[in-house]
């Protein structure tokens, strides 16, 4: 997140002028980003109206009530309990889907950046296109393909891999992971492309001149140089995946593949025990903040290793 800071403009007298430009946006974010976070905390740490079961937020931090958090944490740290099962499942799905995405995204980004040549324009259109096709439409396309009488079953039976149509859309982890990879991989390819495209080719030529094979040049020059981009790509797709509930809902719909996002959706929009949902959101945020912190530390380390 650090950019090279450019020289300053004007002096202290202009500072209020520039702050004035930022004011509407900053006020907007205070009202619709920071305040809502405080409200989540006050509801997670509030009480529930005994008659109507509606949440009663507790605005005073001195009177916060931790029962919703205790409920969430207990379920999270008891083996076999509901939230732990769901959280472990989410973590496994996200890890597998992210790893598969990287295996797909890196070679594609590498090819387009290095060997795109006169096809680069066409290839870039192909890489950008998914950004303009709604995620939900892309899931709808797979619902069509994975139906009992859909084309996936047709092809697999024709190829002799399956004897009878398989029910792909009924609680299969493989379908959910396929959906996650299909949905998120474009968001990993573009940043990887941008970084790989910036790598100075003379470094690779130097490696080759010094006797490295193409593979060695890739492994010892390109790969270490692209480490920050790989980490960034992982963060870019892993964070939203942790909050995903629509992919499992559409491609499985079964509690067997329920993710942490499904639980949040259930508690918040289902209307029962909203404080539990709010506490789950806070726990998810804390977990993702730790992941982000780890990312920032590793990026800093990778940059230092490259001597920047």
């Amino acid at each position: 997140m650090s950019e090279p800071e450019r020289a300053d403009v004007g002096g202290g007298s202009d500072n209020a002028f520039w702050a004035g430009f930022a004011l509407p946006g900053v006020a907007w974010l205070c009202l619709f980003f920071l305040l809502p976070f405080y409200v989540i905390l006050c509801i997670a740490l509030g009480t529930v109206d005994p008659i109507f079961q509606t949440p009663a937020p507790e605005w005073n931090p001195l009177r916060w009530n931790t029962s919703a958090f205790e409920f969430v944490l207990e379920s999270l740290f008891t083996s076999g309990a509901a939230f732990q099962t769901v959280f472990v499942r989410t973590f496994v799905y996200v890890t597998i889907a992210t790893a598969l995405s990287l295996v797909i995204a890196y070679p594609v980004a590498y090819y387009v950046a290095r060997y795109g040549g006169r096809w680069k324009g066409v290839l870039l259109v192909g890489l950008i296109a998914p950004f303009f096709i709604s995620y939900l439409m892309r899931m709808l396309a797979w619902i069509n393909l994975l139906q009992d009488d859909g084309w996936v079953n047709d092809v697999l039976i024709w190829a002799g891999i399956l004897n009878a149509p398989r029910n792909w859309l009924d609680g299969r982890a493989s379908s959910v992971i396929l959906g996650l990879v299909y949905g998120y991989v474009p968001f990993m390819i573009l940043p990887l492309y941008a970084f790989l495209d910036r790598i100075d080719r003379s470094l690779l030529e130097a490696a080759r001149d010094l006797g490295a094979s193409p593979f060695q040049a890739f492994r010892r020059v390109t790969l270490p140089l692209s480490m920050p981009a790989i980490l960034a790509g992982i963060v870019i797709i892993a964070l939203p995946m942790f909050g995903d509930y629509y992919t499992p809902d559409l491609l499985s719909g079964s509690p067997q593949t329920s993710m942490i996002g499904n639980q949040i959706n259930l508690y918040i929009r289902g209307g029962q025990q909203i404080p539990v949902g709010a506490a789950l959101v806070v726990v998810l945020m804390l977990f993702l903040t730790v992941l982000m912190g780890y990312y920032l530390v590793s990026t800093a380390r990778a940059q230092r290793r490259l001597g920047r």
Partner: protein
Amino acid sequence: MTRLRGRWSNPWGKPRFLVLFTALYLVWSIVPILVAIRFSFNEGRSRSTAQGWSLRWYSGDPDLSVLHDPGLSTALLQSLRLAAIAVLVTVPLGVALAIGLTRWRGRGAGTSRAVSLATLVTPEIVMGTALLLVFIHVLTFIKLGTVAQAIGHITFSLVFVLVIVRGRLLAIGPEYEEAARDLGASALQAVRLALLPMLVPAIVASGIVVFAISMDDFVITQFLSSGTNTDTVPVRIYSQGRTAPTPALNALAALTLGITIAIAALAFVLWRAVRAARGQTGSALHEFATLDADTIR
């Protein structure tokens, strides 16, 4: 085997494995969409097999087509309405924020920058929950529905405008404004006459990105919806994706895709033109593809 190795180590040849891999990826990424569009033109009711060609699910069917089923056509209108509001509000708000946060030095600037970037890494479900609860418990004068959804879209996409415009501002540097000031322009005139014209390409680009984000948004829109009359196309696909009895949903998705691509392509052509007029060189597609990458440096 020797021949294979020979090809592999030929430093001037394109690596064939990568060519094949990239081609397969593109096929895998595009074909499902084309198949979904194909089924939208089905004559029959199937969403999983090809059954002739017709416009039945777009306009022909008197009850169930996109044109005649109010549930489907309102979703498309609501998507477009929200995207228009989001672009009109987010772009000016974000451009001002970018100018302010890039030039403003002093107490509060660093914190404001950190808060803005925090929205970038906040998952949508967290922001959706936060906004839903704030509209129910604190800002109760804002009713769920179009206004709340628009506020959600603006809050979520603001940071993208910030990042795109800020990247351009850092590339331009302060020299042009300084020159304008030296020639007697006031601070405001320097921004209006020297800075803004140079920012036009970045402003158009961020407009395209905000439009795409708003059209694509699902979680925040669903959390802040007040009922089926404020459902957008993605929300409609979510609620009917598994149960829809006809390809009308495919027709709705295909129509939305067509409109999105048409608007984005028009805006892209405009962007390329203003870019060229401002003397920016290099591939426009390449620059567009790498816009977002600066957000994570």
